[in-house]
């Protein structure tokens, strides 16, 4: 490539870069590369967006075609099966796992960013969270099966499944909270301390408010991951055709389980239709959560 600087030692040293042929030729070459890079990046973006759009269109199309009152209100065990108990199950798991993982993750992240003094304990905690985020969810599911379902005798249950999901969600919330809080400018924190804030007051009144967009992004990421998990739930929630009778010793259904169970069963078209509806619902839940969170954030961060 011709990116060497024009030399001025030639007899034409008096020529300014403006009309030096070498400089002009170099500049033309760089402009060509500019264009090549633009085309490449647009092509890459399209390579990702087109299949994604196709996928969303396909599932939205099939989902809307398959959706009906019956499929939303009947149990999987009914003569004409529906998704109502899977919807209840997914909602229950989402609520329970969020209730466990969000407070732990946010408080843990606040501790790491504001109180941990860079000692062995906090370094170990951060390392453990990073490792946890990298462990395959099916392994975590199996561990939860052994510990919760068997050893603590929860049975296949919403509680065991929610804890498994919370373990998967925790590292994302924990780390994004820490990073979001570390990004709060030091001089803002100093300003609060100089007014006689305690650390807790400073965190509650300023730091969390400042870091909220980042924390929320982490929470949404974690919620999305927990919604789409299937493997750990097979180990902990099992599956059921009816609503669970309680939080312990009561297997339950969930939308991803419906997809996993019915999509391959081509011989029964009606069941496959349920998988389409479940897919559509999951996508809608994720989209709605994102929209609601963004709107809430906009109102929240408006002064």
């Amino acid at each position: 490539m011709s990116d060497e600087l024009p030399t001025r030692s030639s007899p034409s040293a008096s020529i300014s870069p403006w009309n030096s042929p070498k400089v002009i030729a170099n500049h033309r070459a760089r402009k060509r590369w500019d264009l090549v890079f633009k085309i490449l990046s647009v092509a890459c973006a399209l390579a990702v967006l087109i299949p994604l759009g196709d996928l969303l269109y396909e599932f939205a199309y099939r989902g809307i075609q398959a959706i009906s009152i019956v499929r939303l209100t009947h149990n999987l065990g009914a003569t004409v099966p529906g998704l109502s108990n899977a919807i209840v199950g997914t909602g229950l798991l989402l609520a329970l796992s969020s209730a466990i993982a969000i407070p732990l993750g946010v408080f843990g992240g606040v501790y790491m960013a504001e109180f941990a003094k860079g000692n062995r304990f906090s370094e170990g905690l951060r390392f453990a969270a990073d490792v946890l985020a990298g462990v395959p969810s099916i392994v975590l599911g199996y561990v939860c099966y052994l510990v919760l379902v068997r050893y603590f005798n929860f049975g296949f249950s919403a509680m065991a499944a929610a804890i498994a999901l919370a373990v998967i969600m925790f590292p994302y919330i924990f780390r994004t909270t820490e990073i979001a809080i570390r990004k709060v400018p030091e001089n803002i924190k100093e300003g609060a301390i100089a007014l006689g804030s305690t650390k807790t007051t400073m965190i509650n009144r300023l730091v969390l408010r400042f870091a909220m967009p980042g924390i929320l992004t982490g929470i949404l990421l974690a919620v999305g991951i927990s919604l789409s998990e299937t493997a750990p739930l097979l180990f902990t929630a099992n599956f059921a055709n009816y609503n669970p009778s309680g939080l312990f010793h009561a297997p339950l259904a969930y939308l991803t389980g419906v997809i996993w169970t019915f999509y391959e069963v081509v011989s029964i078209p009606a069941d496959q239709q349920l998988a389409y509806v479940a897919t559509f619902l999951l996508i809608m839940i994720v989209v709605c959560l994102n929209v609601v969170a963004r709107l809430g954030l906009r109102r929240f961060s408006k002064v």
Partner: protein
Amino acid sequence: MSYKSVLMKQGESGEKTDSTQAMYNHGEADVSEVLINLVDFSAFYGTLEVLKNINLPIAKKKITVFMGPSGCGKSTLVRALNRMNDEVPGFRITGKVLLDGEDIYAPTVDPVLLKTRVGMVFQKPNPFPISIYDNVAFGPRIHKLAKNRGELDSIVTESLQKAALWDEVKDRLGKSAWGLSGGQQQRLCIARALAVRPEVILMDEPASALDPGSTSKVEELMVDLKENYTVVLVTHNMQQAARVGTSVAFLYKGDLVEFGPASDVFENPKSPLTEKYIRGSL
């Protein structure tokens, strides 16, 4: 090169920059007016001694200026006066900082409450990303200084008036403080500090990030504040020190080289180091 030779010459002639001696150069201040007294004060970051045996009286309702080149320890010194350095890892002090005769580093003193008595304004304006009103009300709210909304309103109004910002912001109190200009932001920070009703206001190069117009407004404000508050100003700007300072302390490499009334320090410096700094050749 040049400052080293100055130091060497000093060493040869035996004119050691003795801070205790420098203290007695301070002729005018009546002892009864002293509000803060630094006694044999040294500060360390780990093993590095950044302030060496400082003895310095700070007069009540006057402007005391800490002046010196970057790295001389003037910021550390001013931050030590309201214990802003407590959280810095490895920071420790020896000696005493007496505020009205009471050592602020004594175990009985709560460093959080101390800050309501000794407020601070920083180099870079640091308004919070909330409304102008909420910025000023921040301190009164956390310390529960107002019984009701009316009282809080009057604290906010009064503080903004004292900071000479009221007329510019009275119609936009609910707007974000980040929409103000740099100079307005700095005066807002001053108003915010005044709202907790401190006795002392520490200002760490409050005008060094501002344009000349805003700088002179902040300087005028400092002179006004002197009526009711004890002001400690850190600056590396000599003109500013001369314009507003009652007394000036010149620090160099952690030593208090010279301390006295501003006019004496600028017109008749006792140390050759001070003279060099004032000439702009240090």
